[in-house]
């Protein structure tokens, strides 16, 4: 097995050239190598969704992606959702709807929701529930999260 693989990827609009071990997941690279700890480790088998990030706009469990696979791709993590100090409308909506409880599922929830609303500006409740069905939340019962995604403040 090779010691490391060189990859070039855009993460939160910034270009990174990094060396990663071939068996390293994207989750490990984000958290341990790049210090982007907003992406959470919950189950490491793709069940809880706490590690959800966007790869080329698509929501994925970063614990199931090998870091080497992101070579040439564009990644957005929770740290890249706000524009500087200006929160993304989804973030504002989560704050307004009390959709944040313990907050551990929140980054993954937001990234799944972003993938949804980027493709469909007015999703139905059913579509929202399907979009976040891979993100487990033990605190909220999901209702305030669904409402937050449904009622994003219009800019």
């Amino acid at each position, binding site marked *: 097995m090779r010691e490391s693989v060189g990859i070039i990827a855009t993460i939160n609009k910034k270009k990174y050239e990094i060396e990663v071990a071939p068996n390293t997941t994207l989750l490990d690279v984000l*958290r341990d190598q790049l210090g*982007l*700890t*907003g*992406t*959470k*480790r*919950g*189950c*490491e*088998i793709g*069940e*809880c969704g*706490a590690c959800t990030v966007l790869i080329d706009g698509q929501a994925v469990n970063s614990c199931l992606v090998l870091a080497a696979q992101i070579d040439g791709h564009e990644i957005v*993590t*929770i*740290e890249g*959702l*706000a524009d500087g100090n200006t*929160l993304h409308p989804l*973030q504002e909506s*989560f*704050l*307004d*709807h*009390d959709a*944040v*409880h*313990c*907050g*551990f*599922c*929140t*980054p993954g929830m*937001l990234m799944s929701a972003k993938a949804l609303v980027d493709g469909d500006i007015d999703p139905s*409740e059913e579509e*929202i*529930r*399907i979009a*976040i*069905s*891979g*993100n*487990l*939340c*033990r*605190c*909220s*019962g*999901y*209702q*305030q*999260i*669904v409402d937050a995604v449904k009622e994003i403040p219009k800019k």
Partner: protein
Amino acid sequence: MGSKHKIIGKPERRVDAWGKVTGRAKFAEDYSVAHQLWGKVLRSKHPHAKILRIDTTKAETLPGVEAIVTARDIPGSKVFGIVVKNQQILCEDRVRYLGDGIALVAARSREICEEAVALIEIDYEPLPVISDPEEALKPGALPIHGDKNEFVHHKVCKGDVEKGFAEADFIIECTFKTQFVEHSYIEPEAVLAEPAEQGGVVITGSVQNLFSSRRSVAEALNLPLSRVQIIQATLGGSFGGKDEVMTSMCCRAAILATKTGKPVKMVNSREESMLESYKRHPYVLYYKWGAKHDGSITAMEVRCIADGGAYASMSPFVTWRSVVQATGPYCCENVKTDIYAAYTNNNYTGAMRGFGSPQVNFAIESMMDELAAKVGMNPLEIRMKNGFENGAVTATGQKLTHTVSLKEVLTKAAQEIGFEAKWQKYRSLKSGEKKRGVGLACSYRGVSLGAEGTDAAETIVSVQTDGSVIVSSGVTDMGQGAQTQMSQIAAEVLGITMDRIQFLNTNTSRVADSGPTVASRGTIMGGTAAKNAAEKVKTTLLEVGAAMIGCDVGSLDLAENYLINVKTNERLASFSELCAECFRKGKPMMGFGWHHSPPTSWDEEHGQGDAYFTFVYGANATEVEVDTETGKVNVIDFVSVHDVGKAINRGMVIGQMCGGVAMGLGYGLLEEFEIEEGVPKQLNFDEYLIATAMDVPRIRTIIVENEDPAGPFGAKSVGEPTNELAAPAIVNAIFNATGRRLYEIPANLERVLLGHKLTRTGKRGSEVKANHG
């Protein structure tokens, strides 16, 4: 009434939410420091065995390993426990469940830790595994601790049950069973322990009850409490679950940090978390009621056996709440309740949201529907007939002096879902592949710790010279919103807006021991302490203001970030100017608020007393659809009604209600942590199923507010009551739909379709089905 407050009861954003939506919030695993080592536990290979030999020599020579620790290296107490001190930080001569730890490794990487753990050699002599609590209680069963496995027996005795049964027209007897439940906080356990500059240790971790964890670390290391500092990282859910399992992790990391002189980080994988952590108690519940044809209850006899697992943990307290509440909010002159807890070689069981009430509520509310069916009443009528009203006397002989809103919440829940008409309609519809049903459940619940123990808390309000405010408390936030509630209370008292408040995560060295944040006591205890603290500061500020303006203190107040004249509402100075003046005059701008709960009492021998200083009331109503071909139950409508006293923050109360229902739905339909012969079957979320957004329906929430003088601004509690009713409401709805009652939960496909549980035999599904016909 609502207009008298500026902040209380108003929609306010959570004080901790900005960091959580931006990824800035730091949970325990997010903390790393230079030169930190990784720590790992070697856990047992057997659920029950003697340890004959521990050989760490190979592991010690592995490059990168900095320390190997066994029980012999623990300088102080090798065991801990809040009630019974018998939980081993590391096992020396005997393991009692698969989650037991035997040795610790500290190494320069996680990978080296894994390798080192694999090199430690242990010789075991397996002992018989006791996995059934009723077997554990039988004479001759091998004692897991001491000389017998029964370690708790609580009782309640009121009147004379024999007389009550003699007076009855008929008797109902049922046996119910509940399951192990995993807390399923999405954040697995993690700590970072650092050696402190002057000796001792500083721990940052995902700890729910910092003060009890600190006590155990201090005892394990032979340190004074002052040298053990535990700082709560932002906590990714707990639900009662990050208590002893975290105490154990804190002790282990602290031992490694002290031994190596370096920071040590420990993080559980999900599998390690589920394997080691404690669960909700499974109960076997024997219920026997005597009743009259008019629906009144003449006697209630209850016997429950709780599976305590390998260690005592919170079992004595959990089962105590069960014994107090085991006959529900229903009038009955003759009650006899006995609750036992037994040691087994299963995961130990302890605190989990609800704390001994979900089990008994499942039985009580099922019995109530059985009684209704026997006397030809509907489930609402039978509860209205027997339910508590103002001044009722409970099974423990306590006269209820607060507003008893049981019938108010029941009626509201039933009306909202259209209960009576639907119940009548669905019970008469017997055909069809998919059947509908409605179900009802209600409860009363003692607030805070009650007669369990000392009940006091501290909150500190520190006003800065520029008019910003720092609040901290010994009551912790684990996502339920305690920080926001306390901030709102402080802001209300100080007449300031919420943006001025910064809340600090709890640090055991900077605030007084406030007991555990459990028993839905955060708002009522921490909140009252916050009110007291803010009122002290306010008194000082108004005195300074009076001197500054040259008027009576009585003519001044604080509102909307200003010092005002109470009569004219004229703004006399800004809050910031007032704070600056206060500083110039050298007055104290910090308020220490303390709250001690009103008295409670308990006579253990007779099982009588004023168990809790106040109670809350709740009701759930649900509509389900049962697929009679598959056994699948869909919850299609849900109403949750709770009297919270006063909602400090309605959004957060609704959040508690929805979250409680989702967890309760999992308890009723999905979740089961199966242990066979001491071996858990589910260790991650692929097999342990919690409700997803697709499983939970839209929940209709109704907040009832009967203000209670026992709490700040009339507030009581909401966290746990929301979680204790969904399962019986759902099971009662299944009964309405199918005419068949389930006596065991979860009501998963096999129980609903076949009427019993299926266990994995390793055979193909078709063969299993064939065996059961």
